[in-house]
């Protein structure tokens, strides 16, 4: 691991999209998964998802799976690079959380 690391801050939507794709999923599946994970708090827009997916593929954080049985529904899955990004993001979130709890003095609900 390099010492110098680009400080990447993911948006909430992208973070959850990456997490959902630890298993292969298609568009609607991703939306459902994120809804589940966030207990309905994060509701994704189709436009947002569409744009995010093409950017994530470009960056090689996820990849599209070759069209299988249901040829119209493209499925995506996270790549090793994407998993690395998620790992770093979780570390960043730990830092934020720890400092928040430290300063506010306890479990802020």
């Amino acid at each position, binding site marked *: 691991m390099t010492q110098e690391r680009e400080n990447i801050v993911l*948006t*909430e*939507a992208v973070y959850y999209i990456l997490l959902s794709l630890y298993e292969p999923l*298609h*568009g*609607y599946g991703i*939306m*459902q998964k994120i*809804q589940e994970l966030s207990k*309905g708090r994060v*509701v*994704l*827009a*189709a*436009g*947002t*998802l*569409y*744009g995010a997916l093409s950017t994530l593929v470009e960056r090689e954080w996820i990849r599209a799976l070759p069209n299988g049985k249901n040829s*119209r*529904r493209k499925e995506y899955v996270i790549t090793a690079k994407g998993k690395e990004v998620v790992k770093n993001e979780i570390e960043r979130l730990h830092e934020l959380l720890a400092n928040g709890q430290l300063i506010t003095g306890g479990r802020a609900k």
Partner: protein
Amino acid sequence: MKHVVYRLFFVWDFEREQRWLNEMAAKGMMLTDVGWFRYVFQEGTPGEYEYQLEWLPNYPTHPESIAYIQFVEETGAEYVGSFKKWVYFRKKASDKQFTLASNLDVRISHFKRVIRLTGIISAAMLSILAPMVKSSLSLGYIPESYLPNMIVSGSILAFVSYGLYKAISAYRMLKRKRLIQE
């Protein structure tokens, strides 16, 4: 029962147009078709559908647009129709799985495009008007042949720069919001 409404909305007004369509839907009037400033509504259950309006970078017949529309439909939304590069979607309000609404970044880039479009038209009108104004000033009067041109381009300039102003205000407001939240 079918209702046809004629209404004028301009490119910088798209969020107002969307609000209007959703207000109509809340009252039980569902948009089923669009055309030249022409909206066709069907009576239905109030609040059954939510509407979303998007300005695509290409015409709906372009492969990119087709792929995008297909994607949105696969998430469970319905494609209502299109007018130029504007596409209209709707989804059942009861389906809480997703929203059609755009996030801040999408809205910001939307207004950026409106600014670009109205800016270009304004600049074009200015380039037509400026030489005429200049020679009129040096002559001390406005030549008759200039008059129609000046009136037309002047009116367009006033109208479009108003739209430009509105788009810039909306853009700035959204950018300020974006500083704090996603």
